[in-house]
Protein backbone atom coordinates (compact mmCIF):
# COMPACT_ATOMS: atom_id res chain seq x y z
CA UNK A 1 0.00 0.00 0.00
CA UNK A 2 2.96 2.26 0.71
CA UNK A 3 3.98 2.36 -2.95
CA UNK A 4 0.55 3.30 -4.20
CA UNK A 5 0.43 6.23 -1.76
CA UNK A 6 3.98 7.39 -2.48
CA UNK A 7 3.76 7.21 -6.28
CA UNK A 8 1.60 10.33 -6.88
CA UNK A 9 4.27 12.34 -5.04
CA UNK A 10 7.40 10.43 -6.04
CA UNK A 11 6.72 10.11 -9.75
CA UNK A 12 6.35 13.84 -10.47
CA UNK A 13 9.44 14.67 -8.39
CA UNK A 14 11.53 12.09 -10.26
CA UNK A 15 10.00 13.29 -13.53
CA UNK A 16 10.90 16.89 -12.67
CA UNK A 17 14.54 15.93 -12.08
CA UNK A 18 14.63 13.98 -15.33
CA UNK A 19 12.98 16.80 -17.27
CA UNK A 20 15.52 19.24 -15.88
CA UNK A 21 18.33 16.98 -17.12
CA UNK A 22 17.00 16.97 -20.69
CA UNK A 23 16.19 20.66 -20.74
CA UNK A 24 17.68 21.03 -24.20
CA UNK A 25 15.27 18.60 -25.82
CA UNK A 26 11.68 19.75 -25.81
CA UNK A 27 10.23 16.48 -27.23
CA UNK A 28 11.93 14.50 -24.43
CA UNK A 29 10.57 16.90 -21.80
CA UNK A 30 7.06 16.65 -23.22
CA UNK A 31 7.24 12.85 -23.29
CA UNK A 32 8.43 12.76 -19.66
CA UNK A 33 5.73 15.08 -18.31
CA UNK A 34 2.94 13.42 -20.25
CA UNK A 35 4.10 9.94 -19.24
CA UNK A 36 4.40 10.90 -15.57
CA UNK A 37 1.01 12.59 -15.43
CA UNK A 38 -0.71 9.69 -17.19
CA UNK A 39 0.85 7.36 -14.62
CA UNK A 40 -0.27 9.61 -11.74
CA UNK A 41 -3.81 9.63 -13.10
CA UNK A 42 -3.75 5.84 -13.29
CA UNK A 43 -2.46 5.52 -9.72
CA UNK A 44 -5.11 7.97 -8.54
CA UNK A 45 -7.87 5.86 -10.10
CA UNK A 46 -6.53 2.65 -8.55
CA UNK A 47 -6.28 4.42 -5.19
CA UNK A 48 -9.87 5.66 -5.47
CA UNK A 49 -11.11 2.11 -6.16
CA UNK A 50 -9.11 0.79 -3.24
CA UNK A 51 -10.40 3.44 -0.82
CA UNK A 52 -13.94 3.15 -2.13
CA UNK A 53 -13.93 -0.58 -1.49
CA UNK A 54 -12.12 -0.83 1.84
CA UNK A 55 -12.05 2.55 3.61
CA UNK A 56 -9.06 4.82 4.34
CA UNK A 57 -5.55 3.53 3.58
CA UNK A 58 -2.43 4.74 5.36
CA UNK A 59 1.25 4.18 4.78
CA UNK A 60 4.35 5.10 6.77
CA UNK A 61 7.19 6.33 4.61
CA UNK A 62 10.55 5.35 6.09
CA UNK A 63 9.05 2.55 8.18
CA UNK A 64 8.71 4.46 11.48
CA UNK A 65 5.42 3.88 13.27
CA UNK A 66 2.62 6.42 13.11
CA UNK A 67 3.01 9.42 15.39
CA UNK A 68 6.74 9.62 14.57
CA UNK A 69 7.04 8.58 10.93
CA UNK A 70 6.03 10.41 7.77
CA UNK A 71 2.43 9.40 7.24
CA UNK A 72 0.55 9.38 3.95
CA UNK A 73 -3.17 8.73 4.11
CA UNK A 74 -5.89 8.48 1.50
CA UNK A 75 -9.52 8.60 2.49
CA UNK A 76 -12.41 9.06 0.09
CA UNK A 77 -12.13 12.87 -0.01
CA UNK A 78 -8.41 12.89 -0.77
CA UNK A 79 -8.71 10.07 -3.34
CA UNK A 80 -11.49 11.96 -5.14
CA UNK A 81 -9.41 15.17 -5.06
CA UNK A 82 -6.43 13.25 -6.42
CA UNK A 83 -8.40 11.85 -9.37
CA UNK A 84 -9.92 15.20 -10.33
CA UNK A 85 -6.61 17.04 -9.85
CA UNK A 86 -4.56 14.60 -11.90
CA UNK A 87 -7.03 14.56 -14.80
CA UNK A 88 -7.05 18.37 -14.83
CA UNK A 89 -3.28 18.68 -14.63
CA UNK A 90 -2.85 16.21 -17.49
CA UNK A 91 -5.36 17.98 -19.75
CA UNK A 92 -3.85 21.38 -19.09
CA UNK A 93 -0.39 20.00 -19.89
CA UNK A 94 -1.62 18.82 -23.30
CA UNK A 95 -3.15 22.27 -23.84
CA UNK A 96 0.10 23.97 -22.84
CA UNK A 97 2.09 21.81 -25.25
CA UNK A 98 -0.36 22.75 -28.01
CA UNK A 99 -0.02 26.46 -27.29
CA UNK A 100 3.11 27.70 -28.94
CA UNK A 101 5.43 29.57 -26.63
CA UNK A 102 4.26 28.28 -23.25
CA UNK A 103 6.83 25.58 -22.58
CA UNK A 104 9.83 27.17 -24.29
CA UNK A 105 11.21 29.26 -21.45
CA UNK A 106 14.68 27.69 -21.17
CA UNK A 107 13.16 24.30 -20.44
CA UNK A 108 11.88 25.43 -17.05
CA UNK A 109 8.16 24.93 -17.61
CA UNK A 110 7.99 21.12 -17.50
CA UNK A 111 10.08 20.50 -14.35
CA UNK A 112 8.26 23.24 -12.44
CA UNK A 113 4.88 22.04 -13.62
CA UNK A 114 5.67 18.53 -12.38
CA UNK A 115 6.82 19.92 -9.02
CA UNK A 116 3.53 21.77 -8.75
CA UNK A 117 1.75 18.46 -9.31
CA UNK A 118 3.89 16.79 -6.65
CA UNK A 119 3.04 19.56 -4.20
CA UNK A 120 -0.69 19.25 -4.89
CA UNK A 121 -0.60 15.45 -4.49
CA UNK A 122 1.41 15.65 -1.27
CA UNK A 123 -0.90 18.30 0.20
CA UNK A 124 -3.87 16.05 -0.49
CA UNK A 125 -2.29 12.83 0.77
CA UNK A 126 -0.26 13.96 3.77
CA UNK A 127 -1.23 12.78 7.22
CA UNK A 128 1.11 15.11 9.06
CA UNK A 129 0.70 18.79 9.84
CA UNK A 130 4.32 19.78 9.22
CA UNK A 131 4.42 17.77 6.02
CA UNK A 132 1.34 19.69 5.01
CA UNK A 133 3.33 22.92 5.41
CA UNK A 134 6.12 21.47 3.25
CA UNK A 135 3.62 20.34 0.59
CA UNK A 136 2.02 23.78 0.48
CA UNK A 137 5.47 25.35 0.15
CA UNK A 138 6.48 23.01 -2.70
CA UNK A 139 3.23 23.81 -4.47
CA UNK A 140 3.58 27.55 -3.90
CA UNK A 141 7.28 27.74 -4.80
CA UNK A 142 6.45 26.08 -8.13
CA UNK A 143 3.54 28.47 -8.58
CA UNK A 144 5.77 31.51 -7.94
CA UNK A 145 7.98 30.44 -10.84
CA UNK A 146 5.05 29.64 -13.14
CA UNK A 147 3.21 32.88 -12.47
CA UNK A 148 6.27 34.96 -13.41
CA UNK A 149 7.40 32.68 -16.23
CA UNK A 150 7.65 35.36 -18.90
CA UNK A 151 9.24 37.89 -16.50
CA UNK A 152 7.30 40.70 -18.19
CA UNK A 153 6.56 43.91 -16.35
CA UNK A 154 2.94 43.01 -15.59
CA UNK A 155 3.89 39.53 -14.39
CA UNK A 156 6.66 40.78 -12.12
CA UNK A 157 4.35 43.39 -10.61
CA UNK A 158 1.47 41.03 -9.89
CA UNK A 159 3.81 38.15 -9.07
CA UNK A 160 5.38 40.25 -6.34
CA UNK A 161 2.02 40.74 -4.60
CA UNK A 162 1.26 37.05 -4.98
CA UNK A 163 4.58 35.93 -3.53
CA UNK A 164 4.52 38.40 -0.62
CA UNK A 165 0.94 37.59 0.44
CA UNK A 166 1.52 33.85 0.25
CA UNK A 167 4.85 34.05 2.09
CA UNK A 168 3.18 35.97 4.89
CA UNK A 169 0.47 33.29 5.10
CA UNK A 170 3.11 30.53 5.07
CA UNK A 171 4.99 32.13 7.95
CA UNK A 172 1.76 32.33 9.92
CA UNK A 173 1.03 28.70 9.09
CA UNK A 174 4.41 27.78 10.54
CA UNK A 175 3.59 29.71 13.72
CA UNK A 176 0.19 27.99 13.91
CA UNK A 177 1.86 24.58 13.61
CA UNK A 178 4.31 25.56 16.35
CA UNK A 179 1.42 26.52 18.64
CA UNK A 180 -0.39 23.24 17.96
CA UNK A 181 2.81 21.34 18.71
CA UNK A 182 3.27 23.30 21.93
CA UNK A 183 -0.29 22.44 22.99
CA UNK A 184 -0.24 18.74 22.13
CA UNK A 185 3.31 17.54 21.44
CA UNK A 186 2.50 15.93 18.10
CA UNK A 187 2.02 16.95 14.48
CA UNK A 188 0.46 13.74 13.17
CA UNK A 189 -3.07 14.55 12.00
CA UNK A 190 -4.69 11.37 13.33
CA UNK A 191 -2.86 11.69 16.63
CA UNK A 192 -3.86 15.37 16.85
CA UNK A 193 -7.47 14.47 16.17
CA UNK A 194 -7.40 12.47 19.41
CA UNK A 195 -5.16 14.72 21.51
CA UNK A 196 -6.81 18.04 20.60
CA UNK A 197 -9.91 16.63 22.29
CA UNK A 198 -8.16 17.08 25.66
CA UNK A 199 -7.04 20.66 25.02
CA UNK A 200 -9.08 23.39 26.81
CA UNK A 201 -12.00 24.59 24.69
CA UNK A 202 -10.91 28.23 24.37
CA UNK A 203 -7.42 27.33 23.19
CA UNK A 204 -8.87 24.81 20.73
CA UNK A 205 -11.21 27.41 19.24
CA UNK A 206 -8.35 29.92 18.95
CA UNK A 207 -6.19 27.37 17.11
CA UNK A 208 -9.12 26.40 14.85
CA UNK A 209 -9.69 30.04 13.86
CA UNK A 210 -5.94 30.63 13.39
CA UNK A 211 -5.87 27.76 10.88
CA UNK A 212 -9.05 29.06 9.26
CA UNK A 213 -7.39 32.45 8.69
CA UNK A 214 -4.03 31.08 7.54
CA UNK A 215 -5.46 28.50 5.13
CA UNK A 216 -8.14 31.03 4.20
CA UNK A 217 -5.45 33.15 2.55
CA UNK A 218 -4.48 30.20 0.33
CA UNK A 219 -8.14 29.46 -0.39
CA UNK A 220 -8.95 33.15 -1.06
CA UNK A 221 -11.75 33.54 1.49
CA UNK A 222 -13.14 37.05 2.21
CA UNK A 223 -11.46 39.31 3.36
CA UNK A 224 -8.22 37.56 2.39
CA UNK A 225 -8.89 37.15 -1.33
CA UNK A 226 -7.60 40.50 -2.68
CA UNK A 227 -4.37 39.05 -4.05
CA UNK A 228 -6.13 36.57 -6.34
CA UNK A 229 -7.90 38.67 -8.99
CA UNK A 230 -4.76 40.77 -9.19
CA UNK A 231 -2.25 37.97 -9.71
CA UNK A 232 -4.00 35.28 -11.73
CA UNK A 233 -4.93 37.11 -14.95
CA UNK A 234 -1.36 38.10 -15.86
CA UNK A 235 0.12 34.59 -16.01
CA UNK A 236 0.16 32.49 -19.22
CA UNK A 237 -3.30 30.91 -19.75
CA UNK A 238 -2.48 27.25 -19.02
CA UNK A 239 -0.85 28.39 -15.77
CA UNK A 240 -3.85 30.52 -14.78
CA UNK A 241 -6.17 27.63 -15.65
CA UNK A 242 -4.39 25.15 -13.43
CA UNK A 243 -4.05 27.69 -10.59
CA UNK A 244 -7.74 28.57 -10.85
CA UNK A 245 -8.77 24.95 -10.96
CA UNK A 246 -6.45 23.57 -8.33
CA UNK A 247 -4.53 25.86 -6.00
CA UNK A 248 -7.42 27.57 -4.27
CA UNK A 249 -9.32 24.26 -4.20
CA UNK A 250 -6.38 22.63 -2.43
CA UNK A 251 -6.63 25.54 0.03
CA UNK A 252 -10.32 24.73 0.56
CA UNK A 253 -9.49 21.03 0.86
CA UNK A 254 -7.01 21.85 3.63
CA UNK A 255 -9.50 24.10 5.42
CA UNK A 256 -12.11 21.34 5.35
CA UNK A 257 -9.61 18.66 6.37
CA UNK A 258 -8.17 20.64 9.29
CA UNK A 259 -11.46 22.00 10.62
CA UNK A 260 -13.21 18.61 10.52
CA UNK A 261 -10.44 16.17 11.42
CA UNK A 262 -8.64 18.28 14.03
CA UNK A 263 -11.13 20.79 15.34
CA UNK A 264 -14.44 18.95 15.09
CA UNK A 265 -15.16 19.44 18.85
CA UNK A 266 -14.66 23.21 18.49
CA UNK A 267 -17.74 23.39 16.27
CA UNK A 268 -20.65 21.52 17.88
CA UNK A 269 -23.14 22.93 15.36
CA UNK A 270 -23.29 25.37 12.44
CA UNK A 271 -20.74 28.15 12.92
CA UNK A 272 -22.33 31.56 12.41
CA UNK A 273 -18.91 33.19 11.93
CA UNK A 274 -17.90 30.82 9.13
CA UNK A 275 -21.32 31.07 7.50
CA UNK A 276 -21.20 34.89 7.55
CA UNK A 277 -17.73 34.82 5.99
CA UNK A 278 -19.03 32.40 3.35
CA UNK A 279 -22.01 34.61 2.47
CA UNK A 280 -19.82 37.70 2.12
CA UNK A 281 -17.28 35.78 0.03
CA UNK A 282 -19.98 34.61 -2.37
CA UNK A 283 -21.47 38.08 -2.82
CA UNK A 284 -18.28 40.15 -2.88
CA UNK A 285 -16.69 37.81 -5.41
CA UNK A 286 -19.57 37.91 -7.82
CA UNK A 287 -20.09 41.68 -7.45
CA UNK A 288 -16.38 42.18 -8.18
CA UNK A 289 -16.79 40.08 -11.31
CA UNK A 290 -19.65 42.24 -12.53
CA UNK A 291 -17.46 45.36 -12.38
CA UNK A 292 -14.76 43.82 -14.61
CA UNK A 293 -14.42 44.07 -18.36
CA UNK A 294 -11.83 41.44 -19.16
CA UNK A 295 -12.78 37.75 -19.42
CA UNK A 296 -9.86 36.50 -17.35
CA UNK A 297 -10.54 39.05 -14.62
CA UNK A 298 -14.24 38.24 -14.54
CA UNK A 299 -13.44 34.56 -14.15
CA UNK A 300 -10.82 35.29 -11.46
CA UNK A 301 -13.41 37.07 -9.32
CA UNK A 302 -15.73 34.11 -9.83
CA UNK A 303 -13.12 31.84 -8.27
CA UNK A 304 -13.54 33.85 -5.06
CA UNK A 305 -17.32 33.73 -5.26
CA UNK A 306 -17.38 29.95 -5.71
CA UNK A 307 -15.00 29.46 -2.79
CA UNK A 308 -17.75 31.04 -0.69
CA UNK A 309 -20.10 28.15 -1.51
CA UNK A 310 -17.56 25.57 -0.36
CA UNK A 311 -17.00 27.43 2.92
CA UNK A 312 -20.80 27.66 3.29
CA UNK A 313 -20.99 23.85 3.18
CA UNK A 314 -18.20 23.54 5.74
CA UNK A 315 -19.76 26.14 8.04
CA UNK A 316 -22.93 24.07 8.40
CA UNK A 317 -20.92 21.16 9.86
CA UNK A 318 -23.70 18.78 8.86
CA UNK A 319 -23.49 15.69 6.67
CA UNK A 320 -25.49 17.25 3.85
CA UNK A 321 -23.52 20.50 4.04
CA UNK A 322 -20.08 18.91 3.85
CA UNK A 323 -21.22 16.45 1.16
CA UNK A 324 -22.36 19.46 -0.88
CA UNK A 325 -19.04 21.21 -0.29
CA UNK A 326 -17.06 18.13 -1.37
CA UNK A 327 -19.09 17.78 -4.56
CA UNK A 328 -18.80 21.53 -5.17
CA UNK A 329 -15.00 21.43 -4.90
CA UNK A 330 -14.75 18.52 -7.36
CA UNK A 331 -17.10 20.11 -9.87
CA UNK A 332 -15.35 23.47 -9.64
CA UNK A 333 -11.97 21.95 -10.46
CA UNK A 334 -13.10 20.92 -13.94
CA UNK A 335 -15.52 23.77 -14.60
CA UNK A 336 -13.14 26.59 -13.67
CA UNK A 337 -10.23 25.07 -15.53
CA UNK A 338 -12.24 24.56 -18.72
CA UNK A 339 -13.57 28.13 -18.58
CA UNK A 340 -10.03 29.50 -18.35
CA UNK A 341 -8.90 27.24 -21.20
CA UNK A 342 -11.70 28.62 -23.40
CA UNK A 343 -10.71 32.12 -22.39
CA UNK A 344 -7.15 31.22 -23.46
CA UNK A 345 -8.47 30.08 -26.84
CA UNK A 346 -10.26 33.42 -27.26
CA UNK A 347 -7.08 35.31 -26.40
CA UNK A 348 -5.03 33.07 -28.65
CA UNK A 349 -7.33 33.62 -31.63
CA UNK A 350 -8.08 37.32 -31.24
CA UNK A 351 -5.10 38.60 -29.25
CA UNK A 352 -7.19 40.05 -26.42
CA UNK A 353 -9.66 39.01 -23.73
CA UNK A 354 -11.20 42.44 -23.32
CA UNK A 355 -14.96 42.43 -23.83
CA UNK A 356 -14.75 45.88 -25.41
CA UNK A 357 -12.64 44.58 -28.27
CA UNK A 358 -13.98 41.09 -28.97
CA UNK A 359 -17.42 40.38 -30.39
CA UNK A 360 -19.34 38.01 -32.62
CA UNK A 361 -17.17 34.98 -31.86
CA UNK A 362 -20.18 32.63 -32.09
CA UNK A 363 -20.48 33.41 -35.80
CA UNK A 364 -16.79 32.90 -36.40
CA UNK A 365 -16.48 29.69 -34.40
CA UNK A 366 -19.66 27.96 -33.16
CA UNK A 367 -17.53 25.23 -31.55
CA UNK A 368 -15.73 27.75 -29.34
CA UNK A 369 -19.06 29.27 -28.33
CA UNK A 370 -20.40 25.85 -27.33
CA UNK A 371 -17.22 25.09 -25.36
CA UNK A 372 -17.74 28.30 -23.39
CA UNK A 373 -21.47 28.01 -22.90
CA UNK A 374 -21.55 24.56 -21.27
CA UNK A 375 -19.13 25.20 -18.36
CA UNK A 376 -20.47 28.76 -17.99
CA UNK A 377 -23.99 27.48 -17.42
CA UNK A 378 -22.62 24.79 -15.13
CA UNK A 379 -20.83 27.49 -13.12
CA UNK A 380 -24.09 29.39 -12.77
CA UNK A 381 -25.80 26.20 -11.61
CA UNK A 382 -28.29 25.70 -14.42
CA UNK A 383 -29.83 22.21 -14.42
CA UNK A 384 -29.08 19.57 -15.66
CA UNK A 385 -25.38 20.50 -15.71
CA UNK A 386 -22.90 19.46 -13.00
CA UNK A 387 -22.98 22.77 -11.14
CA UNK A 388 -26.66 22.43 -10.31
CA UNK A 389 -26.52 19.42 -7.99
CA UNK A 390 -23.97 20.66 -5.42
CA UNK A 391 -25.59 24.09 -5.33
CA UNK A 392 -28.99 22.52 -4.71
CA UNK A 393 -27.49 20.25 -2.06
CA UNK A 394 -25.89 23.21 -0.28
CA UNK A 395 -29.00 25.38 -0.33
CA UNK A 396 -31.14 22.48 0.91
CA UNK A 397 -28.63 21.76 3.67
CA UNK A 398 -28.78 25.44 4.65
CA UNK A 399 -32.60 25.41 4.79
CA UNK A 400 -32.59 22.15 6.74
CA UNK A 401 -30.65 23.88 9.53
CA UNK A 402 -32.72 27.10 9.30
CA UNK A 403 -29.80 29.13 8.00
CA UNK A 404 -32.03 31.14 5.67
CA UNK A 405 -29.81 34.17 5.24
CA UNK A 406 -26.75 32.34 3.95
CA UNK A 407 -28.83 30.05 1.71
CA UNK A 408 -30.52 33.12 0.25
CA UNK A 409 -27.11 34.70 -0.30
CA UNK A 410 -26.13 31.53 -2.18
CA UNK A 411 -29.16 31.77 -4.43
CA UNK A 412 -28.59 35.48 -5.06
CA UNK A 413 -24.93 34.87 -5.89
CA UNK A 414 -26.03 32.13 -8.31
CA UNK A 415 -28.32 34.58 -10.08
CA UNK A 416 -25.58 37.21 -10.30
CA UNK A 417 -23.19 34.54 -11.64
CA UNK A 418 -25.64 33.83 -14.43
CA UNK A 419 -25.83 37.57 -15.09
CA UNK A 420 -22.07 37.96 -15.37
CA UNK A 421 -21.74 34.86 -17.58
CA UNK A 422 -24.39 36.42 -19.83
CA UNK A 423 -22.24 39.53 -19.91
CA UNK A 424 -19.31 37.56 -21.34
CA UNK A 425 -21.66 35.73 -23.70
CA UNK A 426 -23.29 38.86 -25.12
CA UNK A 427 -20.03 40.80 -25.16
CA UNK A 428 -17.71 38.29 -26.76
CA UNK A 429 -19.82 35.66 -28.48
CA UNK A 430 -23.05 37.29 -29.63
CA UNK A 431 -23.51 40.16 -32.02
CA UNK A 432 -21.66 40.83 -35.22
CA UNK A 433 -17.92 40.31 -35.63
CA UNK A 434 -15.80 43.42 -36.10
CA UNK A 435 -16.04 44.45 -39.78
CA UNK A 436 -12.35 43.70 -40.37
CA UNK A 437 -12.72 40.09 -39.24
CA UNK A 438 -16.24 39.37 -40.53
CA UNK A 439 -16.65 36.14 -42.44
CA UNK A 440 -13.19 35.00 -41.47
CA UNK A 441 -13.11 31.72 -39.52
CA UNK A 442 -11.02 31.59 -36.36
CA UNK A 443 -7.69 29.80 -36.52
CA UNK A 444 -7.51 27.52 -33.48
CA UNK A 445 -4.78 24.92 -32.87
CA UNK A 446 -6.33 21.44 -32.85
CA UNK A 447 -4.49 20.22 -29.72
CA UNK A 448 -5.68 23.17 -27.63
CA UNK A 449 -9.28 22.77 -28.77
CA UNK A 450 -9.08 19.01 -28.19
CA UNK A 451 -7.78 19.42 -24.62
CA UNK A 452 -10.47 22.00 -23.85
CA UNK A 453 -13.15 19.74 -25.33
CA UNK A 454 -12.02 16.83 -23.14
CA UNK A 455 -12.36 18.96 -20.02
CA UNK A 456 -15.73 20.35 -21.10
CA UNK A 457 -16.83 16.75 -21.67
CA UNK A 458 -15.69 16.06 -18.10
CA UNK A 459 -17.95 18.87 -16.81
CA UNK A 460 -20.84 17.22 -18.67
CA UNK A 461 -19.88 13.85 -17.24
CA UNK A 462 -20.08 15.31 -13.72
CA UNK A 463 -23.66 16.33 -14.50
CA UNK A 464 -24.56 12.92 -15.94
CA UNK A 465 -22.92 10.98 -13.12
CA UNK A 466 -24.26 13.32 -10.45
CA UNK A 467 -25.99 10.58 -8.46
CA UNK A 468 -23.00 8.23 -7.93
CA UNK A 469 -20.71 11.22 -7.43
CA UNK A 470 -23.04 12.69 -4.82
CA UNK A 471 -23.19 9.33 -3.04
CA UNK A 472 -19.40 9.24 -2.98
CA UNK A 473 -19.27 12.83 -1.67
CA UNK A 474 -21.75 11.91 1.04
CA UNK A 475 -19.63 8.96 2.11
CA UNK A 476 -16.54 11.21 2.05
CA UNK A 477 -18.41 13.71 4.25
CA UNK A 478 -19.41 10.94 6.64
CA UNK A 479 -15.74 9.94 6.94
CA UNK A 480 -14.78 13.58 7.57
CA UNK A 481 -17.35 14.01 10.33
CA UNK A 482 -16.59 10.66 12.01
CA UNK A 483 -12.86 10.17 11.46
CA UNK A 484 -12.63 7.00 13.58
CA UNK A 485 -11.70 4.82 10.60
CA UNK A 486 -9.04 7.31 9.55
CA UNK A 487 -7.52 7.46 13.03
CA UNK A 488 -7.52 3.67 13.48
CA UNK A 489 -5.95 3.13 10.06
CA UNK A 490 -3.11 5.58 10.80
CA UNK A 491 -2.40 4.80 14.44
CA UNK A 492 -3.17 1.10 14.19
CA UNK A 493 -5.43 1.17 17.23
Amino acid at each position, binding site marked *: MNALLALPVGLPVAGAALALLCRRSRPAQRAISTGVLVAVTGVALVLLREVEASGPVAGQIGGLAAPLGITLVADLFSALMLVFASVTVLTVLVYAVGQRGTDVHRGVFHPVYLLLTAGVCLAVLTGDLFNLF*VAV*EVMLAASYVLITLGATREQV*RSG*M*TYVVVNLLASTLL*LVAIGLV*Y*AATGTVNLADLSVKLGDVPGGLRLALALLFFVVLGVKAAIFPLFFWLP*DAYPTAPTPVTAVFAGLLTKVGVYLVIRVETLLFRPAFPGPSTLILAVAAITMLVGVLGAIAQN*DIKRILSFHIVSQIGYMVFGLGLFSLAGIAGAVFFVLNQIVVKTSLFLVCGLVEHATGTGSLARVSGLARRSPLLAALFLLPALSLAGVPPLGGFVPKLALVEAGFALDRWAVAAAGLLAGLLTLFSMTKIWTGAFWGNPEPAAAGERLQLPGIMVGATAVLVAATLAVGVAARPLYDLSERAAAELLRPDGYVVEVLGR
Partner: protein
Amino acid sequence: MSLALAVAAGILVSGGLYLVLQRTLTRVVLGFGLLSHGANLVLLAAGGRAGAVPLVDGRRGMADPLVQAMILTAIVITFGITAFLLALAYRSWQLTRDDQVEDDREDRRIARLATRRGRR
Protein backbone atom coordinates in the same frame (compact mmCIF):
# COMPACT_ATOMS: atom_id res chain seq x y z
CA MET B 1 8.62 28.69 27.91
CA SER B 2 11.40 31.17 28.39
CA LEU B 3 10.46 34.84 28.50
CA ALA B 4 13.55 35.79 26.48
CA LEU B 5 12.46 33.60 23.55
CA ALA B 6 8.94 35.01 23.63
CA VAL B 7 10.16 38.62 23.69
CA ALA B 8 12.70 37.98 20.94
CA ALA B 9 10.08 36.33 18.74
CA GLY B 10 7.72 39.24 19.35
CA ILE B 11 10.34 41.83 18.41
CA LEU B 12 11.35 39.92 15.27
CA VAL B 13 7.76 39.47 14.12
CA SER B 14 6.75 43.08 14.74
CA GLY B 15 9.88 44.41 13.01
CA GLY B 16 9.41 42.00 10.14
CA LEU B 17 5.76 42.88 9.72
CA TYR B 18 6.55 46.59 9.69
CA LEU B 19 9.12 46.09 6.93
CA VAL B 20 6.89 43.78 4.86
CA LEU B 21 4.19 46.45 4.79
CA GLN B 22 6.53 48.99 3.14
CA ARG B 23 6.37 49.75 -0.57
CA THR B 24 10.09 49.30 -1.13
CA LEU B 25 10.99 45.80 -2.31
CA THR B 26 14.34 45.51 -0.51
CA ARG B 27 12.62 46.29 2.78
CA VAL B 28 10.00 43.65 2.03
CA VAL B 29 12.75 41.07 1.48
CA LEU B 30 14.52 42.06 4.70
CA GLY B 31 11.20 41.98 6.52
CA PHE B 32 10.73 38.38 5.48
CA GLY B 33 14.08 37.44 6.89
CA LEU B 34 13.05 38.81 10.29
CA LEU B 35 9.56 37.36 10.12
CA SER B 36 10.73 33.84 9.40
CA HIS B 37 13.29 34.05 12.23
CA GLY B 38 10.44 35.01 14.51
CA ALA B 39 8.41 32.00 13.36
CA ASN B 40 11.40 29.72 13.92
CA LEU B 41 11.78 31.01 17.47
CA VAL B 42 8.11 30.22 18.12
CA LEU B 43 8.75 26.66 16.91
CA LEU B 44 11.81 26.41 19.15
CA ALA B 45 9.80 27.61 22.13
CA ALA B 46 7.11 25.02 21.27
CA GLY B 47 9.67 22.28 21.99
CA GLY B 48 9.57 23.03 25.71
CA ARG B 49 12.45 23.53 28.11
CA ALA B 50 16.07 23.48 26.99
CA GLY B 51 17.85 20.18 27.69
CA ALA B 52 20.85 18.07 26.89
CA VAL B 53 22.00 17.27 23.34
CA PRO B 54 19.25 15.12 21.83
CA LEU B 55 19.66 11.46 20.91
CA VAL B 56 23.24 11.07 22.19
CA ASP B 57 22.47 8.52 24.88
CA GLY B 58 18.70 8.80 25.11
CA ARG B 59 18.73 9.84 28.78
CA ARG B 60 15.84 11.84 30.18
CA GLY B 61 16.09 15.60 30.08
CA MET B 62 17.28 15.92 26.52
CA ALA B 63 16.00 18.73 24.26
CA ASP B 64 13.17 17.98 21.82
CA PRO B 65 14.82 17.04 18.50
CA LEU B 66 11.62 17.27 16.45
CA VAL B 67 11.31 21.05 16.60
CA GLN B 68 14.94 21.39 15.55
CA ALA B 69 14.27 19.21 12.50
CA MET B 70 11.21 21.31 11.70
CA ILE B 71 13.16 24.58 12.07
CA LEU B 72 15.89 23.25 9.80
CA THR B 73 13.33 22.41 7.11
CA ALA B 74 11.70 25.81 7.51
CA ILE B 75 15.07 27.56 7.22
CA VAL B 76 15.86 25.73 3.97
CA ILE B 77 12.48 26.62 2.50
CA THR B 78 12.75 30.27 3.56
CA PHE B 79 16.26 30.43 2.12
CA GLY B 80 15.07 29.22 -1.29
CA ILE B 81 12.08 31.51 -1.40
CA THR B 82 14.10 34.53 -0.26
CA ALA B 83 16.53 33.90 -3.12
CA PHE B 84 13.60 33.85 -5.53
CA LEU B 85 12.19 37.03 -3.99
CA LEU B 86 15.54 38.77 -4.45
CA ALA B 87 15.66 37.69 -8.10
CA LEU B 88 12.13 38.99 -8.58
CA ALA B 89 12.98 42.31 -6.92
CA TYR B 90 16.07 42.61 -9.15
CA ARG B 91 14.01 41.89 -12.26
CA SER B 92 11.50 44.50 -11.16
CA TRP B 93 14.34 47.02 -10.78
CA GLN B 94 15.68 46.08 -14.22
CA LEU B 95 12.30 46.74 -15.78
CA THR B 96 11.27 49.90 -13.95
CA ARG B 97 14.53 51.32 -12.53
CA ASP B 98 12.60 51.71 -9.33
CA ASP B 99 12.50 49.79 -6.07
CA GLN B 100 8.78 50.27 -5.41
CA VAL B 101 5.78 48.02 -5.80
CA GLU B 102 3.79 49.22 -8.79
CA ASP B 103 0.07 49.93 -8.93
CA ASP B 104 -2.30 47.61 -10.77
CA ARG B 105 -3.40 49.59 -13.82
CA GLU B 106 -6.71 47.76 -14.34
CA ASP B 107 -7.51 48.23 -10.67
CA ARG B 108 -6.82 51.98 -10.85
CA ARG B 109 -9.09 52.21 -13.89
CA ILE B 110 -12.01 50.67 -12.03
CA ALA B 111 -11.34 52.77 -8.93
CA ARG B 112 -11.40 55.91 -11.11
CA LEU B 113 -14.68 54.77 -12.61
CA ALA B 114 -16.15 54.33 -9.14
CA THR B 115 -15.09 57.79 -7.89
CA ARG B 116 -16.43 59.45 -11.03
CA ARG B 117 -19.81 57.76 -10.60
CA GLY B 118 -19.82 58.68 -6.92
CA ARG B 119 -19.33 62.36 -7.64
CA ARG B 120 -22.11 62.50 -10.17
